[in-house]
């Protein structure tokens, strides 16, 4: 009797172990299936030439299917050494144009010099900092690298690394 009992529990433990190992592996495989595809990840780089921009001009480009706001600051806009991207001696605000509240796209109102999010009334200043409403933090800055007058989005250049370290 005793031997068959212990055999049975051995079978139980052995089966349980095999099943657990198999289960963990399949969970990992399933998680990875849901991850973004390599082609999606590779499409994550965009280069923009900033040389033609006027002071005070806002440009919206698309990067990783998200809108990116590039605002060339003019003399009336406060500089923000912590967040400004300096290219060719001009300060730019480069931010992901998605409200940090729930992800709507804020619209720029040049007369008031603010970004206004219509969804729940959030507002951001020209440096992308949240100044009113529910957004919990400033607009996010995408990883970038500066190459002459060009900006490469998606790559973490030294300026970007320095910026994130300070923040």
């Amino acid at each position: 009797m005793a031997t068959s009992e212990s055999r049975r529990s051995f079978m139980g433990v052995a089966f349980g172990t095999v099943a657990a190992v198999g289960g963990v592996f399949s969970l990992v495989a399933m998680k990875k299936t849901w991850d973004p595809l390599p082609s999606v990840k590779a499409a994550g780089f965009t280069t923009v030439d900033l040389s033609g921009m006027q002071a005070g001009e806002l440009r919206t480009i698309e990067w990783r299917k998200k809108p990116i706001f590039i605002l060339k600051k003019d003399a009336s806009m406060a500089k923000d050494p912590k967040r400004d991207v300096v290219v060719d001696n001009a300060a730019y605000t480069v931010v992901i144009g998605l409200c940090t509240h729930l992800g709507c796209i804020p619209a720029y109102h040049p007369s008031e010099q603010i970004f206004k999010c219509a969804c729940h009334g959030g507002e951001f200043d020209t440096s992308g900092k949240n100044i009113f409403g529910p957004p919990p933090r400033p607009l996010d800055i995408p990883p970038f690298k500066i190459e002459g007058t060009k900006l490469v989005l998606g790559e973490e250049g030294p300026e970007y690394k320095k910026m994130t370290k300070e923040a």
Partner: protein
Amino acid sequence: MAHIRKANGLIDWLDQRLAVHKLFDVLMVKYWIPKQINFLWAMGVILTTLFAVLFVTGLLLVMYYKPDTALAFDSVNKTIMQEVDYGWLWRHMHGVAASVIFLIIYIHMFTGIYYGSYKRGREMIWVSGMLLFVVFSAEAFSGYMLPWGQMSYWAAQVITNLFGGIPFIGPELVIWIRGDYAVSDPTLTRFFMLHVCLLPIVIISIIAFHFYSLRIPHVNNEISEELDFDLEAEKYMAGDTRNSKVIPFWPGFLSKDFMYICLFMIFFFYLVCFKFEFAMDPINFDPADALKTPPHIYPEWYFLWSYEVLRGFFFDIGGIKAFNIGLAAFGIAQVIFFLLPWLDRSEVVKPAHERPLFFIWFWILLIDMIVLTIYGKLPPTGVNAWVGFYASIVFLLLLLVILPIITIMERKGAK
């Protein structure tokens, strides 16, 4: 093997192999329902009917629908609506049923609350019902996304973004759920899978479980009387149908339900034929545009109350970000009803009108949820924001604080 003899007909043939008579007895003829219940108890059968409607119309739609961001919009708005014979009918039935089913679910839920049908012995009925509500919400949301219109797109954007609020893993989780950095093709195809395959399977199994959970504690009744079902059933079967307090599910109870189904279906097809626009948001007839947010985003009516709880907290309190308070309140709103059997600690099972304080609580809750629903649709500016704020607070207080206090008072009073 049982002894199989030559059958004297199809039923007998089946009976020998599948015991269909016994099965029919267990499921229908000897399944006892209290006599004293009103039309509110017909909601369960109406829900089953609506689910069947959704299932069948869904099958027809899925034959022409294309889960591809480039094709989805046209496959719905051109192919199904204009080319497929009666495609418009299936779409309107599907859309209207998806909307109306929530109305009936809410009635079903509030009936349960009113008559205390979640209390001791019936907790599993309540919990499985709430589980159904949650999975149905996921089903509705994933389906809402499929036509790939502007509202679909931005609803998906906002809802998936909510997961970003989860500590530590939030941002990665959002990308993982979407399968891309933004809502796009992989998001559409996986939501398609959820909507037509996984979630329906889950729903059907929980429905089966919900029905099963009714078997042992039995269905409640209008005066919340505790019946001895065995005794009453014996009376019924002995021929004393008059004095027995129960009737069999079939044919007695269902025949009454069929009448309610007929009435409901007339109302339903009136909506499908003449008032279908209420389930179709006009903004969703613009194709999705990732670079332009519609000026005012709101969910379908049945999510408005919890949406309003989410955005009701629009200013920081005590150093906690408004966004996080809203998210936490929203999270609470999603699970709080599950806990109802344990928040209401009073042992009395009675309809609300016999529990004075609970009665008031019930109606305030109902009104508060209607207020939340109305203000959830309005733009959150000025006074609206404040109404939303106070209504959200009232909602949380009612369930988290006032209900336990009321039931403790009731318990003390009873002794």
